[in-house]
């Protein structure tokens, strides 16, 4: 009905609507049945009245007792003028159309032609002449007439005409409608709140389940928080709650494993870097030792002394830079990504790059400060760049571009080299699939998990010329811009 509305309201509203619909449907049927009954009763009463009057009047008219005929004809009308079953008038006419007796002497004066029956008097007389035992019916001018011959010992005496107004049943219909409307209103007044209450009762376990699931999602792993009353519920909801809790526990366990794997993988990446870093540190150390030796020997010369000290300073700064970059990897801090993190990664990869004669071209559109966590993004960049270095032929170029859009950061890492086969592309982000002899097969999978957790995604475009990994991370997790 209203697709975005909570079950807490949808079920009660639906139940209330069902109650309302049922009440209206039943009322409609009762009204229809009532109207049929009214019609049937009215027809039956008209026939019975005609039969009774014709029989009674036959006895009176046979002995010419006009007064008794008047009493008998008017008896049903005494104090019952408003009764919907009665005709508007009853009149007895002779063969020439003159009134012998009537229920309404003002309208039908005695011994005068029944002119109140207007132009259809000839039709009535004609019908009366041709109906022997059965009544005839005539409908004219919002009236319908029951025409019945009055006879005694097979001798025709007179004609009884009962004039019913067509709209005489309306007050009865209205009464029926009024009574049914009151009944419907009362039942709706009772059923609506009942429907609402039942709906709320039905929806309550669902709402509880929803709250529990939210809690399980938010506080995964916390045993206390995972307790939920709806689990004790018998039936489908209890089963569902227990299954969701199982799945939730499995998920949280899996997250735990992922966390551990990510840690392990980071260690592995560092391991892959270790030789290069040692080399990075060793290089300036060699330079510095040479500078110290020169200084010892020619230190009295102020120019040489200054040069060697400068050399040592540069070497130490180079080492400090390497160590600083390394420290971030070893002990990730809870801070946000900054442009210098890119420089750090380039520095950590320096030896690896140089080892293969690779050139890392960084294209940075310029961005200041982000809300993205530095640790995970650095790990992703490091993993992808390590893969690029591994996959690149010697003396080629790796291209790293960082493009800051209004709502997302897009990182592209492209390298040349053989394309990744299509069948391998499909399973590339699964664990233990990688084809890197140095790696543990978890790098891409971990990177994919990290990017997903940040609300983004990694896409791969591999052609004969380039293999491009495109990482898209929204500035804010809730933003589905990627």
């Amino acid at each position: 009905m209203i697709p975005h509305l909570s079950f807490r309201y949808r079920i009660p509203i639906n139940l209330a609507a069902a109650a309302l619909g049922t009440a209206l449907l039943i009322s409609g049927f009762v009204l229809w049945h009532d109207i049929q009954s009214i019609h049937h009763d009215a027809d039956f009463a008209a026939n019975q009245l005609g039969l009774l009057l014709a029989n009674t009047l036959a006895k009176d008219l046979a002995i010419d007792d006009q007064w008794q005929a008047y009493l008998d004809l008017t008896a049903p009308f005494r104090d019952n003028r408003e009764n919907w079953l009665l005709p508007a008038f009853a009149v007895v006419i002779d063969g020439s159309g003159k009134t012998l007796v009537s229920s309404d002497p003002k309208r039908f004066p005695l011994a005068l032609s029944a002119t109140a029956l207007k132009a259809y008097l000839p039709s009535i007389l004609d019908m009366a002449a041709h109906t022997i035992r059965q009544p005839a019916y005539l409908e004219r001018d919002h009236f319908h007439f029951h025409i019945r011959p009055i006879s005694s010992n097979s001798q025709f005496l007179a004609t009884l005409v009962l004039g019913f107004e067509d709209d005489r049943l309306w007050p009865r219909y209205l009464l029926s409608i009024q009574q049914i409307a009151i009944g419907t209103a009362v039942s709706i007044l009772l059923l609506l709140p009942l429907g609402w209450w039942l709906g709320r009762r039905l929806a309550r376990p669902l709402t509880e389940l929803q709250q529990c699931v939210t809690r399980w999602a938010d506080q995964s792993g916390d045993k206390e928080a995972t307790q939920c009353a709806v689990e004790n519920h018998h039936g489908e909801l209890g089963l569902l709650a227990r299954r969701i809790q199982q799945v939730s526990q499995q998920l949280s366990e899996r997250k735990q494993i992922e966390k551990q794997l990510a840690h392990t993988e980071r260690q592995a990446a560092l391991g892959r870097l270790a030789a290069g870093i040692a080399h990075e540190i060793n290089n300036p150390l060699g330079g510095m030792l040479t500078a110290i030796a020169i200084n010892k020997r020619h230190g009295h010369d102020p120019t040489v002394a200054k040069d060697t000290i400068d050399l040592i300073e540069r070497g130490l700064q180079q080492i400090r830079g390497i160590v600083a970059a390394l420290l971030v990897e070893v002990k990730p801090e809870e801070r946000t990504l900054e442009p210098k993190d890119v420089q750090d990664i380039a520095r950590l990869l320096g030896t690896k790059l140089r080892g293969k004669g690779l050139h890392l071209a960084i294209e940075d559109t310029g961005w200041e400060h982000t809300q993205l966590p530095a640790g995970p993004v650095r790990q992703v960049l490091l993993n992808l760049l390590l893969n690029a270095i591994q996959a690149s032929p010697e003396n080629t170029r790796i291209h790293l571009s960082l493009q800051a859009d209004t709502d997302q950061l897009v990182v592209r890492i492209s390298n040349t080299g053989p394309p990744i086969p299509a069948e391998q592309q499909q399973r590339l982000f699964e664990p233990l699939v990688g084809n890197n002899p140095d790696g543990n097969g978890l790098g891409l999978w971990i990177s994919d998990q990290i990017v997903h957790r940040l609300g983004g995604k990694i896409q791969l475009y591999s052609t004969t010329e380039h293999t491009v990994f495109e990482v898209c991370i929204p500035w804010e997790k809730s933003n589905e811009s990627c």
Partner: protein
Amino acid sequence: MWRPRASGRSGHARLCAGIFCALFILYSASRAASADQAPRPLSFGITAVFPVDQENFLSDWKRYLETRLGRPVQFVRRKSYAEITDMLLSGQLDAAWICSFPYVLNRQQFRLLATPVFHGEPYYRSYLIVSADDHKTRGYRDLKGKVFAYVEPRSNTGYLYPRYRLHQLGLDDRQFFRDTVFTWAHANVIRAVAEKMADAGALDGYIWEVIRHRQPALAIRTRVVARSDKFGFPPIVASASTSEETAGKLKKILLEMHLDPDGKRLLDKLDLDRMILPSPSIYDSVEAMVGTLAGKLALRP
């Protein structure tokens, strides 16, 4: 040993049967004796000459008469005066309260017992009434082409007098009126006119006055247009076959009704003063009308 016992048992049975038979004979004899002793009820015919529908009037009057007569009284009601008159003539009734018209037709056969006194005299009149909203009609002359309600063919004020009056005016009711209706009771004439079933009607003035007094809602729907001359009030008569003793006893009771409180209360219910034995000549005017119309009315002696 057991023979005498057997004969003894049979002796007991015979004794019991004998006692039972004796009791039965005694009982039957007493029934027969009481049936012989119980007096035959006095049959009293009543007609529409007085408002018989007054609450409890008939049962009170029955008790009143039974107490004083010392025998049961049976009221007999019939639709028409003619039926009561026939029953009186044939001796099926001991007495009856009849209209002046049948009385004068059968004066020789009936014994006048009493005549009620209304408004101080033993007379009443015929009233011509129309609907209360008919302000034009002033008398019989204005009723040409109208529907007229009579009481019944043996009514003085409700048939004989209107016919006589038309005769005086040189009119014949069959041609003068569009239609005529017999309503078989004075009160019905009022109703027929009030409900406009009939345009006009003639009835006992005494009855109209009582109804105006006791049921004003009905009477005020009609208007009295004309009052006739006085006629002798409908009398209570005895059949020729009624014993002198019964007739005399009944006459005495009726004539003395006003003297005791119970009788007075009954008379009050009918708005009557008392009963008297008037000179039969008070009915002469009715007889004169009968004489005048003799050729027009299908009269039996």
